């Protein structure tokens, strides 16, 4: 059982929940930028959460299925088509051998997630197939994006019998609470970073009160923001381990949020840290989007993460 990539699109990669627990050796975790969208795609297929999906950034992916199976596509709308028909997103959809899935460029949102019954097979490194380009691990080609001609195996964990009896349950189709609209602004929840107190009151206020513009150069490693620079001029700090969503302020005075493929260590002062929900939201914001950082209560945010993890039985 496999699929054939006919066109890798702008940037498509295999992702699973990430290469967790090897940060001390310098390995980035990777993993889906919009984690809930990836989880929904697996959930709709009754897949285990650890099943690998394809993260499609910006679109234009096209591929062919080499066997009958079931898929689900969640996240940004890229006008997906199954053969000539529009494909319904956020729902399990049966496909036949020879069917072609293709998509255009995303109109709203940035990333979509394709799950397949059983999950995709990739090169497992330290227990994960998550593609991390910089670390040259994961996926089908050492972390590099998918390209035309790639054949991706699919786990046949589902027995033939079960496959036949597998029914698409329409009641499991899900409409997400928030839509991937082309909205041009967003508020992102942050917590105070470990060096928050090193910044002047004026800088702290400026950080929270201005609208930043999300830069074109943003990617899976980091999101850069343009705006009025902070002026505290904090020289580098002794390098520290970096968690998801850390916001560093390099000498330019403009914040950089470190995301899934971040380096594990960072030597710039961290004024704040995005909440996990804010990271997922940021993953779907287009360049040019106006962004405001808003201090949030960490205890409340922890409850939201717990709720999310319980729903998807993530652990």
């Amino acid at each position, binding site marked *: 059982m496999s699929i054939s990539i006919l066109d890798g699109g702008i940037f498509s990669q295999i992702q699973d929940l990430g290469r*967790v*627990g*090897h*940060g*001390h*050796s*310098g*390995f980035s975790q990777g993993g889906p930028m919009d984690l809930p969208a990836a989880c929904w795609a697996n959930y709709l297929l009754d897949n285990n959460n650890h099943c690998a999906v394809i993260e499609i950034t910006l679109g234009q992916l096209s591929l062919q299925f080499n066997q009958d199976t079931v898929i689900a596509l969640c996240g940004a709308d890229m006008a997906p088509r199954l053969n000539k028909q529009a494909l319904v997103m956020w729902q399990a959809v049966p496909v036949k051998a020879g069917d072609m899935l293709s998509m255009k460029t995303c109109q709203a949102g940035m990333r979509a997630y394709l799950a397949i019954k059983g999950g995709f097979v990739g090169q497992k*490194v*330290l227990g994960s197939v998550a593609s991390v380009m*910089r*670390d*040259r*691990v994961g996926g089908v080609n050492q972390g590099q994006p998918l390209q035309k001609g790639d054949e991706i195996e699919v786990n046949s964990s589902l027995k033939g019998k079960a496959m036949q009896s597998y029914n698409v349950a329409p009641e499991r189709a899900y409409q997400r609470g928030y839509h991937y609209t082309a909205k041009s602004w967003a508020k992102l929840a942050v*917590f105070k*970073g*470990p060096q928050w107190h090193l910044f002047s009151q004026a800088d702290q206020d400026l950080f929270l009160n201005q609208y930043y513009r999300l830069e074109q150069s943003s990617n899976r490693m980091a999101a850069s923001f343009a705006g009025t620079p902070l002026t505290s001029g904090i020289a580098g700090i*002794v*390098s*520290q*381990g*970096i*968690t*998801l*969503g*850390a916001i560093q302020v390099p000498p330019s005075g403009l914040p950089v949020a470190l995301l899934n493929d971040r*380096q*594990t*260590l960072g030597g710039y002062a961290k004024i704040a*840290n*995005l*909440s*996990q929900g804010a990271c997922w939201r940021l993953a779907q914001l287009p360049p040019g989007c106006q962004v405001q950082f808003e201090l949030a209560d*960490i205890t409340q*945010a*922890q409850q*939201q*993460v*717990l709720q999310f*993890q*319980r729903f998807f039985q*993530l*652990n």
Partner: protein
Amino acid sequence: MLAIHPLNETSLLVTFGDQFDNATLDLIGLFCHQLKSRCPARLLKEVLPSYNTVMIEYHIDRISFDQLHQLIHQSYLSIVQLSPSQSETRLVELPVFYMGPDLARIANHANMSVEQVIQCHSDTLYRVYAIGFSPGFPYLGEVDPRIATPRLTSPRKQVAAGSVGIADNQTGIYPNASPGGWNILGLCPHALLDNDYQCRLQVGDQVRFVPIAQDEFLHLGGQLGEEFR
């Protein structure tokens, strides 16, 4: 003194004072060991030591911030009573074929001969301060101040795997070919990541570089790329 700062919903940063020295490194090594013995692995996602901090990511569904906070304090209290000699530090010897493109630059900077630079670099017993930048890249210190050399003004597009370099008062080894701005002294024939991607070094380890000749370098499996021929 110990400070604990929550970073996000599932991570926190433990800072061991403002000063960074070898005693801090010993303390951090003992701390990580204690924490792991008090806290089952299934509760923790990442334990990432670096210089004077340890970043911890935890399973919030299995242990709360307050519970972890308490375990961190208990671990810390149990180690501050220990004398430094109770820390077990591994010594790892790494062979180096000293023939790198920046030896002359470093010698010039230090006003020494190339031979003196090599001796100076290999006489020092280093500690692993941190591992990062790329998988398996160790930051070692502290370099003898005489040969501490600033990074190249424009980084090389490609530095060979195994390259041993100096940047200011730290020395390190590129586990894989990558762009880089460190001053390259030579090549280490040993892979820093094994075939299973496990890292040969860990934070706190002692490292000594042992100069070897080209024959031995090749015998140990080292490869000379075009840039070194």
